[in-house]
């Protein structure tokens, strides 16, 4: 069976619009009858990824593929890349500026959270080129 595919632009300059794509995906998954657990996992992981693209990478693109067995989310940006992924994956590690912290973000919990809520996670990143997150959640 071929997957249902959805594409979203995540605007880089507009923090207030971050989360629109994940909210839309959440709604769609619900309507398609995926389990509440799977819906929740995808929504949370994708939102964290979306926020990261806005804060750290000047925006990017999200592609979501919905299969009967699994949901795949790909988040691709042309931002600065992550020099040390292992460090970035640690809870509390963050380079977020104060403007972002004042909004309540930038606690360094995003990537650990994505790891926690996905069944598979792969990060491809190159300094000066960009970052791509491949996430998978089993239905």
């Amino acid at each position: 069976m071929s997957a249902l595919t959805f594409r979203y632009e995540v605007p880089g300059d507009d923090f207030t619009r971050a989360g629109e794509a994940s909210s839309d995906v959440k709604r769609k998954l619900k309507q398609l009858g995926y389990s509440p657990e799977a819906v929740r996992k995808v929504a949370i992981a994708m939102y964290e990824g979306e926020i990261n693209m806005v804060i750290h990478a000047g925006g990017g693109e999200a592609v979501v593929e919905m299969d009967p067995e699994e949901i795949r989310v790909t988040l691709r940006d042309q931002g600065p890349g992550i020099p040390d992924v292992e460090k970035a994956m640690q809870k509390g590690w963050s380079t977020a500026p104060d403007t972002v912290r004042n909004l309540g973000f930038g606690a360094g919990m995003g990537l650990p959270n994505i790891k926690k809520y996905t069944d598979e996670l792969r990060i491809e990143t190159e300094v000066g080129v960009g970052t791509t997150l491949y996430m998978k959640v089993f239905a």
Partner: protein
Amino acid sequence: MKKEKKQVRDLAEFLQAECLVQGDLDREIQTGYVCDLLSWAMARLPEGAAWMTVMGNLNAVAVCSLKDGACIVLTDNAPLDKNAESRAETEGICILRVEQGAYETALRLGEWLREEEK
């Protein structure tokens, strides 16, 4: 006859809270959560929680919606951003506001949750 469910509308009444956005007033409240750090709430806000916070911004609404929180209770009379208000309306998230701080409000929530159990 006594209702079994503890709903957002009942909490609003009990707290004598100002209702800034009605959202889903029938939503059941199972527990509470106090936190102002959105990243943290993103990781830990329990489903069905009345979330007590001073963060009245758009991202707080998004977090509550994505985590299936029951409602947001703005404590200490914290302000609600205009765009957060319209987002909450779209997402069906109820936003209440009280004068007391998070500690006082959480105590009363706890009292209310237990009281109705009997």
